[in-house]
């Protein structure tokens, strides 16, 4: 697939991480121009012709990846199988929604793994019920203390929920990345080279 890394200008289109997609945006890290008929295929070989390196084309900005603390995520999972597996998973989900209501969770998400955890409910609609399903709950919280509520509530379902098993849970700290641009002139760099 013809695909450049972001911030590379390839064949007349460019992509900026931190803004809208723009045509002809002066956002080049390395100017490589690929002409329309660049690729020829012959006997399982692909030849790239007509590539031109435009050294004059240098972006005025550089990309910055900024890491920042963005709270914690608590996660729990538990499985249900056999007749009415879906109904039991949905009941467990409703119990958790109630139990985690005032738990300092800013964003709460439920997935039914094996049914709708990947493409969401709309694209997964109208499919037969699976033999087994894994309920997954994740919650975004501000601190580690609140994060542990999620796996603990899932574990509590063993004896306080519909018949199911295989519970697992975890908490993790979130270091998120935000992409931004900085004027090239704001950065100085040097190379220090040592040889032994």
């Amino acid at each position: 697939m013809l695909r450049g890394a972001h911030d590379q200008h390839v064949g007349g289109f460019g992509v900026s991480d931190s803004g809208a997609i723009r045509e002809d945006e002066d956002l080049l890290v390395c100017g490589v121009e690929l002409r329309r008929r660049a690729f020829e295929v012959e006997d399982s070989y692909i030849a790239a012709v007509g590539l031109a390196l435009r050294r004059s084309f240098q972006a005025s900005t550089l990309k910055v990846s900024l890491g920042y603390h963005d709270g914690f995520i608590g996660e729990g999972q538990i499985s249900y199988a056999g007749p009415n597996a879906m109904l039991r998973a949905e009941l467990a989900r409703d119990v958790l929604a109630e139990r985690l209501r005032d738990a300092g969770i800013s964003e709460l998400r439920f997935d039914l793994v094996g049914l709708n955890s990947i493409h969401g409910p709309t694209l997964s609609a109208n499919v037969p019920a699976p033999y087994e399903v894994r309920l997954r709950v994740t919650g975004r919280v501000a601190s580690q203390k609140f994060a542990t509520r999620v796996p603990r509530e899932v574990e509590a379902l063993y004896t306080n929920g519909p018949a199911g098993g295989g519970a697992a849970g975890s908490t993790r700290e979130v270091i998120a990345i935000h992409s931004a641009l900085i004027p090239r002139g704001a950065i100085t760099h040097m190379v220090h080279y040592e040889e032994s």
Partner: protein
Amino acid sequence: MHLSEIAHARAGDKGNLVTLSLIAYRSADYPLLEQHVTAGRVEKHLAEILEGPVSRYELPQLGALNFVLRRKQQYSVTRSLALDAHGKCLSSALLAIKL
């Protein structure tokens, strides 16, 4: 027929941007892709997770289309609650489109 019968697709991601490539198995099928798999069609199909319009790039010399879309902010890779945080499985969602 599903797109999966005449094309394959892959997904790439960065932040909350996702790129989806759609590549015809046979170059003779490319015009079908170009005609039916418009940016609007993809936008409608993936509306649940999208924020903003979908952009489409055509690469007829490769028999391929490339879509660039933006997911809702909470789905940004490094902080998403989703199981498929990168959105790598979205290429399969594209192939589920019916012609």
